[in-house]
């Protein structure tokens, strides 16, 4: 019994972190699914979902129930174990980065000194999942989608890392809390506007969203890497995608928009989380907005844009930052 009491605080912490992580992943998917369909509708001058509940607010709940009731179809010539593994691999790693994100100065799972590396390392597993799913479906469209995802993500990871690295040079820490603390007078978006722009473009490509949604370009590849997936195995991919969007937008908020800093609300100790979520969902709104506004790019344009513009610009930005940090 004594042993039990000695590990009880850690145990409670773990349980709370796990429950909150799951709540964020699923709640975020519900909100984003509804917001995406509604915003897409209004951008295209149509109402979007209207039938279930007031202005269709329960649409996603009904959709979820429908997806859970569907049969999990495995294609005849697919590689069965890998086909089942891929959605799990896309979904499971998104919980870990949520542990290190500082939602406010008091709400954070663990403050690691390698916080950023944890996020980047686990985000890259998503790519492996896409590749496994695309290959094991034994479908040419899936395979094309997976290949495009790999070449796109590997390329856009570089400007993303370089733009974050210039912030790291200024703050001298990988800890997300440390980065937030370093922007107490001015947010880094003011000092590093170029890095912010590069990061913003890179995350659109990293999350495989239009105008860079080549891996699932529906006019060319049916549905890309998840063509053969049905029911919950498909929705695990979608849940993973929305959670990844949340994570990359949180990183943008932490690195460029001052994290949870904002006007402190009266009588509320944890008011930082309100500002944090507000900034994150503003960025997500921006991502939805450009997804439904711009047409898809061609693949060679996408790669040229990364290798010929984003990477040189982010390198120059990094060098200037390093020189300035050294001089000042």
């Amino acid at each position, binding site marked *: 019994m004594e042993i039990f009491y000695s590990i009880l605080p850690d145990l409670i912490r773990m349980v709370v972190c796990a429950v909150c992580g799951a709540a964020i992943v699923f709640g975020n998917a519900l909100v984003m699914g509804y917001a995406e369909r509604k915003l897409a509708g209004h951008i295209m001058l149509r109402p979007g979902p209207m039938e279930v509940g007031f202005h269709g607010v329960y649409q996603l709940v009904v959709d979820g129930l429908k997806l859970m009731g569907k049969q999990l179809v495995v294609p005849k010539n697919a*590689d069965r174990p*890998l086909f089942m593994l891929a959605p799990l691999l896309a979904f499971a790693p998104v919980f870990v980065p949520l542990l290190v994100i500082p939602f406010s100065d008091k709400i954070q799972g663990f403050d690691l000194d*390698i916080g950023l*590396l*944890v996020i980047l390392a686990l985000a890259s597993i998503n*790519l492996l999942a896409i590749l496994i799913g695309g290959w094991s479906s034994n479908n040419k469209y899936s395979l094309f989608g997976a*290949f495009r995802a*790999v070449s796109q993500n590997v390329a856009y990871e570089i400007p993303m890392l370089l733009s974050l690295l210039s912030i790291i040079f200024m703050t001298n820490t990988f800890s997300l809390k440390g980065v937030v603390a370093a922007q107490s007078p001015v947010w880094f978006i003011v000092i590093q506007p170029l890095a912010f722009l590069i990061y913003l473009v890179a995350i659109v490509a990293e999350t495989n969203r239009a105008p860079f949604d080549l891996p699932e370009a529906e006019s060319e590849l049916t549905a890309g890497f998840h063509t053969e997936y049905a029911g919950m195995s498909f929705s695990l991919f979608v849940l993973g995608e929305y959670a990844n969007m949340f994570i990359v937008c949180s990183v943008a908020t932490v690195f460029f928009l001052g994290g949870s800093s904002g006007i402190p609300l009266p009588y509320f100790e944890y008011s930082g989380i309100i500002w944090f979520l507000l900034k994150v969902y503003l960025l997500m709104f921006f991502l939805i907005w450009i997804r439904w506004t711009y047409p898809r790019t061609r693949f060679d344009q996408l790669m040229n844009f990364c290798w010929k513009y984003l990477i040189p610009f982010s390198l120059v930005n990094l060098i200037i930052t390093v020189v300035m940090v050294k001089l000042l």
Partner: protein
Amino acid sequence: MIVYRYLAEVLFYALVCLTFAGGIMAVRSKMLMHAVLGLAATLFGVAGLYFHLGSPFLAMMQILIYVGAVCIIIVLGVMLGNTPDQLAAKNLTGRSLPLALLACATGFISLFVATISRTEFSPAKEKVGDMSIEFVGENLLLQYCLAFELISVILLTAIIGAIILARGGREGKTS
């Protein structure tokens, strides 16, 4: 605190199992994709072992670097390798099997006699001090600077070599 000790033990053996299972899968499986995924499992296991040894930095770098690398190997493997219906044929059949076993056994026994049996396996000295990124960075760039720079020279050579090898194939195709 004894609970943590047991948990760490269990975790250690689980990671060792993952590493070995991945290695065996990488060597034994007939399909290239499965072999590369076995390699990925091994690399994850090694990353977990780094974590177990108290260096989360190394573990995260291992995952960050090797997952991307594994993806690229898979892409190249699918583009250059066989389709699933032409699986790699076994070449260990008939008379070659005992010969192969003999060759392996000879190599292993001679190695065992020559080196392994004479080696004293003492556990590494426990390194006290913080394993923070600052510590790793200072050591890499001050004390072990030469090794660090030599590794980067090797990488540079590999990149230049790859470019030279690949350039021949693209002549006349660039527009």
